[in-house]
């Protein structure tokens, strides 16, 4: 009797385990598509950027067929949880707040953040004391916006759904300075619209790097992605992609 029960339990566990181990031969990847040079749509409406290239390289390692889904930034975590896609490769910084609701792979890059202001603004020091009375802007739901809220209390903060809108309002002068991932900001400064402005003050390192986010119950996918990230770093794929976009390494050990 006991034997039978044990057998039944074993069989049940085996089935449960099978149901648990999902098939990751097809992975749907969510990204924003409005954050050059990390993820954006090119003129042919194709997704491009460092996040996208890394995701593709990871998929190659996992021998998985990947499809990309573009999703507004504000809704990207809810969409992951709702099962609209399985992993987020969207320059999402690993933060404690986000870790409460999603799991992150190991980071695949890390860049500092910086303030950008109009040329000739006279801003050199970006401490809260020096910037007193200025209007600051950032994309909402980002670590940059969280940092401003925490460290610049009492300031007029303007938060925008996309990074493009932050740029627009800096160019028009509605905000005195914006706070953004430095690499992203430098990319904009190279454009015609970005000609108005420059990086001010020193770099500010934030967060523990950028990782791929997955649902909490997909630990197997998380680990597979982490492993693949280390593999593409080891075989040189990562460095090649890094060099395609940036003249300096953004890898984080």
């Amino acid at each position, binding site marked *: 009797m006991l034997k039978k029960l044990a057998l039944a339990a074993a069989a049940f566990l085996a089935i449960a385990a099978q149901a648990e181990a999902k098939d990751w031969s097809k992975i749907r990847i969510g990204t924003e598509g409005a954050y050059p040079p990390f993820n954006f749509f090119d003129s042919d409406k194709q997704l491009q950027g460092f996040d996208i290239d890394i995701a593709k390289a990871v998929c190659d390692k996992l021998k998985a067929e990947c499809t990309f889904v573009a999703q507004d930034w*504000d809704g990207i*975590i*809810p969409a992951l949880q709702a099962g609209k896609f399985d992993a987020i490769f969207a320059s999402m910084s690993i933060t404690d*707040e*986000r870790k*409460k*609701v999603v799991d992150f792979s190991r980071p695949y890059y890390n860049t500092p953040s910086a303030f950008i202001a109009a040329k000739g603004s006279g801003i050199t020091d970006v401490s809260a004391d020096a910037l007193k009375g200025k209007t600051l*802007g950032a994309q*909402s*739901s980002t670590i940059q*916006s*969280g940092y401003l809220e925490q460290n610049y209390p009492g300031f007029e903060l*303007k*938060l*925008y*759904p996309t990074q493009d*809108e932050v740029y*627009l*309002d800096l*160019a*028009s*002068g*509605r905000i005195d300075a914006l706070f953004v991932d430095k690499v992203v900001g430098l990319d904009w400064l190279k454009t015609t619209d970005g000609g108005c402005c420059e990086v001010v003050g020193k770099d500010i390192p934030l967060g523990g790097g950028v990782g791929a986010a997955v649902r909490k119950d997909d630990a197997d996918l998380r680990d597979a992605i982490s492993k693949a990230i280390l593999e593409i770093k080891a075989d040189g794929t990562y460095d090649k992609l890094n060099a395609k976009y940036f003249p300096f390494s953004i890898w984080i050990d």
Partner: protein
Amino acid sequence: MNFEVLQEYGPRMLAGLVVTLELVAISIVCGALLAVPIALGRMSRNKLVSRIAFAYVYAVRGTPLLAQTFLVYYGAGQFRPELQAVGLWWLFKDAFFCCVLTFTLNTAAYQAEIYRGAILAVPRGQSEAAMSLGLTPRAIFRMVVAPQAMLLALRPLGNEIILMIKGSSVAAIVTVFDLMGVTRLAYSRTFDFQVYLWAAVLYLVMVEIIRRVWDHLEHRLTRHIRHA
């Protein structure tokens, strides 16, 4: 109920609620002031005036409020040197002002149609009877047509206010921390769907208050035509 989130974001959401009420109240009142001349323009015998009024109503009612808000807010940003030259940039720099301006222009078109419809719905016999008493056209409008038209406009006007309360949430997209703006912020920090539920309840309460006030107003204003 997540009391931690409520404690942290509850007061901010109430502050957002006040911003929403300000947005709607200012826009509805300014819109009404603008709507009366537009409605009269629509009914004018002067072809040019009526066509301009029609074109305005047509364009505003035919485009989404969101697009209008973006157009005013980011459009004004593009014309900063020109606006500075005429000394208006300080106004357009402010997101709240841009929203009030857009909402006022938007609701003016809708309200104009409401007033026009109401004026036209007053039976012709009323003004004919007044005319036979020798009243001047101005007096007929002021004492006979307008009071009856206001009664007919009451319900659709209540509707318009309700639509404006909900529509005002687009202000959140252009950095105004109205009820929706604060809710989005709270959600992005907490990932707790409850905050959207609270926001929905607050919008519902505002609409319910309007509904009750309107019921009461209508009940009171129609007491002369109710049969005991």
